[in-house]
């Protein structure tokens, strides 16, 4: 089993999962005209190589909104039941790093 002994880290906001998995429903597209900072556009173009700018911005917005939604969910769960204890974090991290 690959990964044994390694401690793979999350890739940050563009985690692999999001890029590799298809959504359950294909969203309709809408053509809009927006104005962005040129420096931002240059950076997005450089980061995504030859990909279409629309697709790149679409993905970045998808990731950003998904993070917002997850943060809302966690916030709601913590308001209802309190934050997770340090012991809970220790337990789940131990299960992740557990050898096969």
């Amino acid at each position, binding site marked *: 089993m690959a*990964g044994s002994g390694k401690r*793979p880290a*999350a890739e940050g906001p563009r*985690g692999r*999962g999001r890029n590799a998995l298809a*959504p*359950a429903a294909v969203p309709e597209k809408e053509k809009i005209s927006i104005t962005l900072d040129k420096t931002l556009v240059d950076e997005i173009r450089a980061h995504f190589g030859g990909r279409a700018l629309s697709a790149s911005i679409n993905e970045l917005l998808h990731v950003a909104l998904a993070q917002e939604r997850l943060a809302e969910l966690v916030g709601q769960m913590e308001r209802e039941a309190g934050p997770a204890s340090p012991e*809970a974090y220790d337990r789940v991290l131990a299960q*992740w790093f557990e050898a096969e």
Partner: protein
Amino acid sequence: MKKAPLAPWPAVVLDSQGLWAVARNDDVDARAVLAASSRAGVPVIVPAAVLAETLFGDERDARANQVLKRIEVAAVTDAIARSAAKLKRLAGMAGVAATIDAVVVATAAAAGGGVILTSDPGDIRALAQGVTDTRIRPVRVS
């Protein structure tokens, strides 16, 4: 209270019990996994097949639906279905429950590995043995 640590896993995938543990919000370990994932920008994913297995299709789904609005529902693509079939065979498992579990593990593999919130870590671990290039670990929920 101490801030949640940054999740070291690339994704979180929920099986049926994982989804309900989040929906009921009565499992502190599930809350820890989601909080750490949120801090690290890690996606939380449920395969669409899990919804078919676990939802009722009526008002009993209300809490699960609240969760589903805020996480990602992933399609069971041809590639994921084929990967699940192979994992099931390698694990020597059969039946509908094993098929859904295999889809959960195959989805985690397609996501680059990650944590699976489940009440049945034994079966998930057995299926994950067939994944050779990424780390997949079950985290037990009640």
